[in-house]
């Protein structure tokens, strides 16, 4: 017997209120609205002990998903260990008291989620929780698959899911392919994708490159800006390859979602495609087989889309917008690398970091413009593209 729905609701809502990711959004929501939180969906996945239920709570126009597990209270400490924050509380499952908790704290239940999300097609022996963010939790199974369990739900199809499936259809392979989709009651609850062990975020590679450059400058005390390309940790060739991948991503997006003509600020018509929209160095991964696009900035609560429970509209814009996002993240990561150096060296480090940024942005553009067919999306020649890009990056830096 599973616990009674009302009892679960009584535990889940206060639990949600304790979560930073819930409050991050709820702080904007009136207390009276909060009081209206209600159970929108309950599905019991495992009826016995340990038990498991998928619970959706709606409040203030948002829907939140919590996976609740339960066991006999005496067993729970051994399972949960120090993860006391995961406890929801005690209730009755018909044959006695059980302790309810966030199921991600229980490895056995987390491992079983894969089979549930994939309708029995996938299973795994080992699981680890790698990320617990505002909008989702990520679980890695056997270093082979990973599952993103959405906490803040959106009506299906969620943009990320749609993008992945369509890009796969048009043959864009430089991404972590979708393996299974867990959908219920009009929401995407989770997405299972390939996991590439050993992949590294673009940001980490960029920091490695900067560490080498700035470290060498400190050692040698005579590094000139023009020598940036000669530094051991040069990132130029990697950025050129990333530019190529970005170009093919845009061609695939254009094929999947079409090309539109929008009016530019000066009233002239401009080609627009469905852009990635949140393209930066954390969204791309370097694998042993080259770069892949890891994610699509799937977060209903943060980012440029702002809050609100309504469905976000796909963004059509100039492909330069994505390149500008990426270029801007080169600048941010360079600033980050400079900031950890001794203050006395900042002037020199900044100069080098600027050269580094310019070199890598140029490499990115070269790779991008070198992609066959990219002329159908990019009407500008290289100098014009570079100056537009610089303007867009400056806009981001200012705003």
């Amino acid at each position, binding site marked *: 017997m599973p616990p009674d729905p009302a009892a679960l609701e009584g535990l889940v809502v206060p639990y949600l209120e304790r979560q930073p990711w819930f409050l991050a959004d709820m702080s904007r929501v009136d207390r009276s609205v909060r009081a209206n939180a209600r159970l929108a969906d309950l599905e019991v996945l495992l009826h016995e002990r340990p038990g498991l239920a998928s619970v959706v709570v709606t409040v203030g126009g948002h829907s939140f998903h919590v996976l609740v597990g339960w066991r006999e209270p005496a067993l729970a400490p051994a399972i949960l260990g120090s993860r006391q924050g995961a406890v929801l509380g005690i209730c009755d499952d018909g044959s006695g008291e059980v302790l309810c908790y966030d199921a991600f704290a229980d*490895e056995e239940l987390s491992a079983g989620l894969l089979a549930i999300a994939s309708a029995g097609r996938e299973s795994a022996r*080992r699981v*680890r929780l790698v990320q617990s963010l505002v909008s989702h939790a990520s679980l*890695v199974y056997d*270093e082979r698959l990973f599952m993103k369990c959405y906490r803040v739900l959106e009506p299906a199809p969620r943009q990320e899911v749609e993008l992945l499936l369509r890009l796969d259809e048009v043959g864009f392979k430089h991404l972590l392919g979708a393996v299974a989709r867990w959908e219920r009651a009009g929401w995407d609850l989770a997405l299972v994708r390939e996991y590439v*062990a*050993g*992949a*590294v975020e673009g940001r*980490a*590679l960029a920091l*490695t*490159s900067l*560490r*080498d450059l700035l*470290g060498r400058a400190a050692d040698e005390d005579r590094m000139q800006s023009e020598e940036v390309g*000669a530094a*051991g*940790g*040069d990132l130029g*060739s990697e950025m*050129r390859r990333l530019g190529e991948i970005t170009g093919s991503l845009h061609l695939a997006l254009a094929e999947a979602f079409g090309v539109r003509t929008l009016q530019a600020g000066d009233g002239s018509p401009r080609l627009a495609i469905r852009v990635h929209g949140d393209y930066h160095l954390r969204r791309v991964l*370097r694998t*042993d*087989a080259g770069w892949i696009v890891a994610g699509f900035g799937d977060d209903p609560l943060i980012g440029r889309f702002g809050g609100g429970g309504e469905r976000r509209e796909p963004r059509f814009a100039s492909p330069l917008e994505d390149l500008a996002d990426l270029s801007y993240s080169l600048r941010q990561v360079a600033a980050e690398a400079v900031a950890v150096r001794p203050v006395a060296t900042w002037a020199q480090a900044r100069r080098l970091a600027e050269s580094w940024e310019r070199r890598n942005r140029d490499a990115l553009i070269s790779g991008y413009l070198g992609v066959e067919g990219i002329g159908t999306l990019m009407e500008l020649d290289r100098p014009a593209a570079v100056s537009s890009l610089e303007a867009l990056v400056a806009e981001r830096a200012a705003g």
Partner: protein
Amino acid sequence: MAASSRQRLDDPRWYERAVFYELLPRGFYDSNADGIGDFEGLREKLEYLEWLGVDCLWLLPFYPSPLRDGGYDISDFLTVAPELGSTDDLAAVIEDAHRRGIRIISDLVMNHTSDQHPWFVESRSSRDNPRADWYMWADDDHGFADVRVIFLDVEPSNWTFDQRRQQFFWHRFFHHQPDLNYDNPDVVDAMLGVVRFWLDLGIDGFRLDAVPYLYKAEGTACENLPGTHQLLRRIRAEIDASYPGRIMLAEVNQWPDAVVEYFGDGDECHMCFNFPLMPRMFMAIRREQRFPITEILAQTPAIPDGCQWGIFLRNHDELTLEMVTDEERDYMYGEYARDPRMRKNLGIRRRLAPLVDNDRRVGELLHGLLLSLPGSPVLYYRDELLMGDNIYLGDRDGVRTPMQWTPDRNGGFSRADFAQLYLPPLMDPVHGFQAVNVEAERRDPSSFLHWLRRMLAVRHQYPQFATGTLEVLPADNPSVLAYVRRARDVLDGAGEPLASGPSASGLDGAGEPVPSAGAPAAVLCVSNLSRFAQPAELSLGRWEGCTPIELLGRVPFPRVTSAPYSVTLAPYGIYWLELVER
């Protein structure tokens, strides 16, 4: 005896576990004070090689030669260069080496001869002599127009005009090295005779030079043609039938997917060099990230049972850049060869130590990779001392200077007058023989030489390094390369499973590795490719509950749990850890 502690001489698959040592006989030790190293000198120094712990010597060409290409221009295949001694002297070296458990393979150049070879002298003498067709002659130089020129620094074409015969002859390398014509069955028979001659003398196999170019065909790149594979299968069949346990090690400087063709179905070469891996080890350290290495490992196909890669850091040739992309090549040039004299053809002619700015930590890191990545490691003589080079010597001589034995005259290499030496020894204050020599490093227990010897001993104890599987582990830090080598169910030549634990050690004294008992464990190798200290979190989930034990000091590390495993590494630091179930 040492043989029992290392390679059993009756194991036909010895090469899968062997550590090779490439040496230049004329540069190793001069026993008769004529300024040139010789076989008797080599025999006297076998004790050193046994002490170091190598299993097989690869002798660079020792045949008579005008020496216009480091001996790869052979003028007689069936004897040894008189300045090195006699064939009997070589036989004595082989016998002594075998007694010590050390095998010997020799270089064999099948593709071409010297233009001084009697075969070519006869062939060029007229158009109708008995050997007129032993080489590739043509009336014009239009044939094989698409074939690339390999030594493009010095050779404008693969065709050279011969005044006497009034025809052009074909050469893939230097113009004084005419290519043999393997379409002529007499040439094939002659070369098989050469192979038998040396195997009968006791040579354990051949390092086959320039293998891809043996057969030529119009309209092709004249590389990797079916005829070449057919010839290799024929030689292999001969070896299997009459000389079991002898090996063919091919030099095929191509991408891995082309190279694996030279293993055939296990019926061509026993070993091939893995060329692309080498420059990428250097590149990974320069970029402080693992992808140059993991990328090439991911592209390296599986090889048939009974085959093995040969891997190396440096050899007698330039650091080959043929197998990196143009962009990477520019990068390597910029990094490792700022002085234009250091560049040569498509490579860089530097020894290991100056290539890494004489940084011992990088030397250890590179050798740690060499000894733990898949393949049999091939050391280049003197790299065990981290010796330098002399870029002011011509051609590739800069990396072929004499071995440095002692701080005495001529580095203990020869008692001849200095002016008599085949090449001057290094005398600069950093790499010169007074600073870097065997005697000093053998006396110093903390020398690089001793460190390498300990690592070789550890490697011999763990067959995983030789024949195990390799799995690259995810690490959050791109500067950290981690992989696990795990034993396969390997049977030795006699059909017995290999000893599950490490075998007896060749080391003595305190602090030596103590082998652990039980089933063959996995060995985790973690390397920091950065010159700065690095942390890393490794995904070791599969080994949850295991205790990693460091192989040199047998120090237990914290037990693996389900959480990511944290390690911290010193600059260029390496760990080899056995994952022991407890």
